[in-house]
């Protein structure tokens, strides 16, 4: 249990139970989140991944089964559920639509202020969170609505980081951003994780982002875990991924093609760096 940040034990979630619209979103799932890891959650629409994310911070209460966060069964005392939301911070999809304050600093301070922290602590957390996401301090007094889309997204992320959650859950943090914006936001997440030792859960549709930023990948399908492991393990299952409507990174596909043609390259290559190393082995090591 020591290196487990959160755990779902036999968890099911049924939407609109006992109505004609009843839908089992999550079906008897056992999932363990390893502490200090970035776990990627992937699966097509309706696979149950967002439901899992929302159960991890107590936003949804499972229809059956138990959710443990930092070793505690979070629904043992439902009145205490607010605490879980501070421990496990959830960043929704398109969180920039939820900004509302007059200044960037006040928007980021909203969470820590709700936690009842002293003012000095709040301002130091706000400054720190802005640094995590790479927002310049000169933006503090600006209206969040004058910022670019990518900056707004980072303000929203900083607002959750300022609560210093031990588990940071992100639902498609990079959706709709350009490559630069994507790198800025995701490297902010990595910085937060490295500085605080937090556990990160990240939902994404981008296999390339998963390959680059995640230590573990959990593939969901039809409300159940389908594949789990390191990116090497998961991406070496190209066929199984394609069967559930997912794909492997482009570079993994290239390596599979080379293998098919009889070259002894690894099937679990998913970054350009690793592919370069593999190919240089074949060409005799020197720089091609």
């Amino acid at each position, binding site marked *: 249990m020591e290196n487990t940040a959160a755990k779902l034990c036999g968890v099911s979630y049924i939407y609109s139970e006992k109505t004609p619209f009843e839908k089992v979103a999550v079906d008897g799932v056992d999932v363990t989140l390893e502490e200090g890891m970035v776990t990627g959650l992937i699966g097509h*629409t309706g696979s149950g991944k967002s439901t899992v994310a929302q159960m991890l911070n107590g936003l949804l209460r499972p229809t059956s089964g138990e959710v443990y966060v930092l070793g505690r069964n979070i629904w043992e005392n439902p009145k205490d559920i607010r605490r879980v939301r501070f421990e496990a911070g959830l960043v929704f999809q398109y969180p920039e639509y939820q900004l509302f304050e007059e200044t960037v600093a006040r928007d980021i301070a909203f969470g820590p202020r709700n936690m009842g922290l002293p003012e000095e602590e709040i301002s130091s957390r706000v400054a720190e969170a802005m640094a995590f996401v790479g927002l310049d301090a000169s933006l503090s007094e600006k209206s969040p609505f004058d910022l670019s889309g*990518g900056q707004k997204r980072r303000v929203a992320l900083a607002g959750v980081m300022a609560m210093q959650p031990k588990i940071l859950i992100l639902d498609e943090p990079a959706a709709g951003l350009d490559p630069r914006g994507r790198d800025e936001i995701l490297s902010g997440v990595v910085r937060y994780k490295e500085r605080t030792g937090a556990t990160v859960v990240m939902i994404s549709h981008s296999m390339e982002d998963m390959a680059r930023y995640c230590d573990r990948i959990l593939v969901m399908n039809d409300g159940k875990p389908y594949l789990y492991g390191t990116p090497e393990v998961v991406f070496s299952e190209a066929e199984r991924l394609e069967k559930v409507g997912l794909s492997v990174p482009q570079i993994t596909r290239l390596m599979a093609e080379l293998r098919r043609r009889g070259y002894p390259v690894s099937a679990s290559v998913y970054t350009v760096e690793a592919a370069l190393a593999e190919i240089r082995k074949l060409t005799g090591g020197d720089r091609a």
Partner: protein
Amino acid sequence: MAETIIKTEKLCFEYEKNEGEEKTQVLRSLDLTVERGSFVAVLGHNGSGKSTLAKVLNLLVTPTSGKVWLFGKEINEETMTEDELYEIRRRVGMVFQNPDNQLVATIVEEDVAFGPENIGVEPSEIRRRVDEALETVGMTAFARHSPHQLSGGQKQRVAIAGILALRPEIIVFDESTAMLDPMGRREVLDTIRKLNRDNGTTILMITHYMDEAIDADRVIVLDDGRIVLDGTPREVFSHVEEVRAAGLDVPQITELTYRLGLSGTPITAEEGADAIEALITNRQERN
């Protein structure tokens, strides 16, 4: 000679963010010519001006200066009648990013009928167009469904059908796959390709996904309101450094072969494997 369907000359757009402050230049003297029936991908980082360009073409935004010709006719909002402007908007359809913001009715087929109803198409003709549009996007089976029960990709296809029912000649897709999962993206991309190939619709596809641009006939890269690269996907992606300087990535395979020092800019897994195979064979012969 292919017909020019879109042409802009020294197209500029600027706006004042805050009163009295320096103006923000969004489009800087943009010259663009697009031929009828082509499939053009428009790439650029956020703020590069690509969405503004899309809105200029749909007459949602009036340029600060410069000229625009659509269907061979110069656009002039002062001399053109309201009806003429509406007619241009009908001929240039737009599909946006968020599927939820584009659907207005509670039943799929009613949503698709919304556009033609608004422009006063005969009811029997509306029926025909709705059926045809749903057929084209593969959503006939969902005609009587409620849009909120559909997946993102399905909703986006309904939004496309709504545009098709207006019989546009150009469709501009403004990051229409950004909010979709891989399956939804594939559905929408297949639909876009089909419209271009089978109906001959001119496509302008704004996207952040480099791998989507591979399918286009032509790729345009915008940076800071200017066209910095323009060519076939292969030509554009061969300029790895310039693409990066514009705040974009190249496809992984292109990056790999670039770093291996290979020429030819492979963009698919097969082409990449061919190039690497050639490299290996070459090495073995030398040793």
